[in-house]
């Protein structure tokens, strides 16, 4: 079952709930960075200025640069779920993954191994949605199988499926 996040650009209000819900779920202290971030975009100038927001976490790339660069092979993509996961027993904290990730997803808390969004895979395994999706006040964030998300996207033009780098190979 290939999972993904969807994001409805027209609905996000930049309320930051997803950022904090992720911290609460993963016990990330307030002085560190959540696995999820929200970026505010200002468009236009007075009187026609508008705001837009984008929420970002690990894109679980199919051709993940972090996995490709990891010297210890600690990062791999689970074929079945499409989740890119870190084996903490193998990670040496060298931060090579952070250098190559185009989305700034890997987190290194001092003295610790790499951590990042893993789709709340344990919740998903129990039929629950990721913490950020559950809390989203505007229902901008969605989660599901790629098949479900494609169907939703077909119904509404402002919906995007978050897909990271994809392999061009077979």
């Amino acid at each position, binding site marked *: 079952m290939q999972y993904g996040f969807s994001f409805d650009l*027209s*609905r*996000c*209000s*930049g*309320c*930051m*709930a997803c*950022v*904090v*819900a992720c*911290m*609460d*779920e*993963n*016990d990330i*202290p*307030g*002085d*560190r960075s959540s696995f999820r971030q929200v970026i505010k975009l*200002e468009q*236009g*100038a*007075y*009187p026609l*200025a*508008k*705001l*837009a*927001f984008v929420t970002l976490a690990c894109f679980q790339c199919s051709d993940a640069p972090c996995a490709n660069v990891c010297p210890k092979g600690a990062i791999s993509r689970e074929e079945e779920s499409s989740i890119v996961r870190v084996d903490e027993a193998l990670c040496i904290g060298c931060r090579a993954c952070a250098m190559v990730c185009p989305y700034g997803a890997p987190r290194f808390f001092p003295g610790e191994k790499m951590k990042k969004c893993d789709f*709340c895979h*344990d*919740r998903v395994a*129990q039929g629950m949605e990721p*913490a950020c999706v*559950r*809390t*989203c*006040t*505007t*229902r901008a964030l969605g989660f599901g199988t790629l098949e479900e998300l494609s169907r939703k996207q077909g119904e509404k033009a402002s919906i995007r499926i978050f897909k990271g780098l994809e392999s061009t190979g077979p």
Partner: protein
Amino acid sequence: MAGNQALRTDKSPRSKLPIEGSGIEIRHTICAICNPFSHCVIDAYVKDGIVIKVEGNKSHPHNGGTLCSKGAASREYLYNKDRIRTPLRRKGERGSDEFEPISWEEALDVIGDRLNSIRADSGPEAVAFYVGYTKWMRPFVKRLAHSFGTPNYCTESSTCYTATKVAAQLNFGYFGPPDIKNAGCLLVWSSNPFYSNPSTVRKLLDARERGLKIIEVGPLVTPLSAHADVHLRLRPGSSGALAHGIANIIIEEGLFDREFVENWTLGFEEYRSYVRQFSPEKTEKITGVPADSIRRAARLYANTKPAALMVSASPTVHHTNGLQNHRALTALVGLTGNFDRKGGNYVVPPGWLYVPNGLVPRQTQYEQSRAWSDMAPRMAGERFPVWSRFVDEAQAMHLPFQIRSQEPYPIKAVIGFGMNYRMWPGSDFMYQSLKQLDFFVNIDLFRTDTCKLADIVLPACTSFERSELKFYQEGSVIWTTPVIEPLWESRPDTDVIFELAKRIAADDELMQKGYEANVDWILEPTGLTVEEMRKHPAGYNVDGIKMPPYEKYKKSGFPTPSGKMELASTILRDAGLDALPTYKEPMLSPVSNQALAADFPLILTTGSRLPMYIHSRTFRLPMTRGLHPDPTLDINPKDAQERGISTGDRVSLATPRTSIKVKANVTEVVPPGVINIFHGYDNPEVNTLFEPDYLDPISGFPGFKSLICQVEKVD
């Protein structure tokens, strides 16, 4: 420090699945951090007596599983290191923060003895009771105050919501929220529901996607702006002029509801000839909104049936001309025939704690245990007679003045529930006033700077640690059960209230019966009981709530002196004030005081919401504070460029009263000429920029949202 350990000991999220054998139990409560319309139902994951995770309750119709950034940070609120742990008695000078722990019994006895002796020496009116945020204990405090004998019960609502209520009541006698579900057009006047009421916005967006037209009025760009068909970015403080400009177009183009106006309004001709001077071009000159945009908005609002008006609790009335401005804009609801109609503004009688849902308990009857005529005159009753006529409280903005003047009688003691002196304009003036009291008690969650001024400080607990009653607009109710026992020696505010009732209001027989018996008494007309509600820990929908009909005025008239909607107010005329909702400039604006404005050419507006904060309530939570660590001032790129200011620069923000230093944020969120800053930080104190008497003369509300200012770069 049970709490901080709870956040750090168990790093593995794998332990947060509420599955068999995990030892995790999901218990239900509500988040009570923000305003009563948006208290979300929470699923608290409890393991070994500790809350290890929170999320929104999915089956509840109000929040449907969601929580905003504030509610999602609830564990840091609950287990915060600044929580007060025991009752405290002051040892050092006021404000020195030197306290010693004392027992509850001793603390309550000291308070009881002092209050009884002040009542004997100076009369009960020398004691003022005050409630800040949150509001859940208000009816019980008000009854305690009146049973004690003082008319001086006051609240944070002296700067929030009540002025809008008075304005609408002067016009209509009652008012109602927008019926968004059935509306074709929504006029949103200076409200940002995305950050003020985040539990409601998913439904607003659904309505928009179904074709709801949206008109936004407000100087700032908000998340709503991208959804608005028209956005009128007016100069702060000019709402009244803009409303008159819209009214003039609606009348002159014949778009008003003739049947309603002819049969159900008082003073239409007078109003019509007054608003005639607000031509689109003149209105543009006053408000800064292009005349064509005003025409477009007026036609869209008047021609789309039905249309609803959404206002907020304070942006339109935080001006020295705010009450009349708010009358002017709510007048549009009557003019277009959208009052008390489906899809317009639908009137539902008051419910419990500001949330109407069709159930009508005996809240007002409960609160007013003694008639006004059996008590001394209320504080500020003469200064703000019209506000005092409609709001059964004392106007708290007058508190520092009466503490100082001791006229017409002294205020010797204040019992505060969550009091924050920084809420007052000229907050340093309020701080010094509190120092002059003979006796000051503050009951709070956190050891705030206001607590440091108190003689006795009592530790309250959060919504996770108590039982409370909550109504939801969706027709449901909840009586919460504590998800954990109160931490340390903290107790629910109601414990304090009913313990004090034994000591200072022994004649009040009902209060001697305790909290739950009092809730049952209040709920009696609804048929609800604590016992029944307790069976539904996540709340439940009450069957068979009878909603009132539309257009109630057709049967019984309007509850105004004339029985009609009053475009010219009988009450204001009798009080010697302008009967029409006349537009006046803010007391200090670039127009009203041009000489002073030469040195202060910009307009300061304060207090619009950031998504992670509400007032001062979540500053001390690391998760939310980390999202916006430093106070910042929003300045338009044009004004910033003229002053050589870039984002991150330290700047001075000056008003005629004083100046503060803060970091600049250069942004298109504010229009040119306007400076926006969030309030409530301890440093700098934004409210020191305002004079303590920079108040609307009718409502007593501070002019927090329009004052002249200047910004300069500091090195």
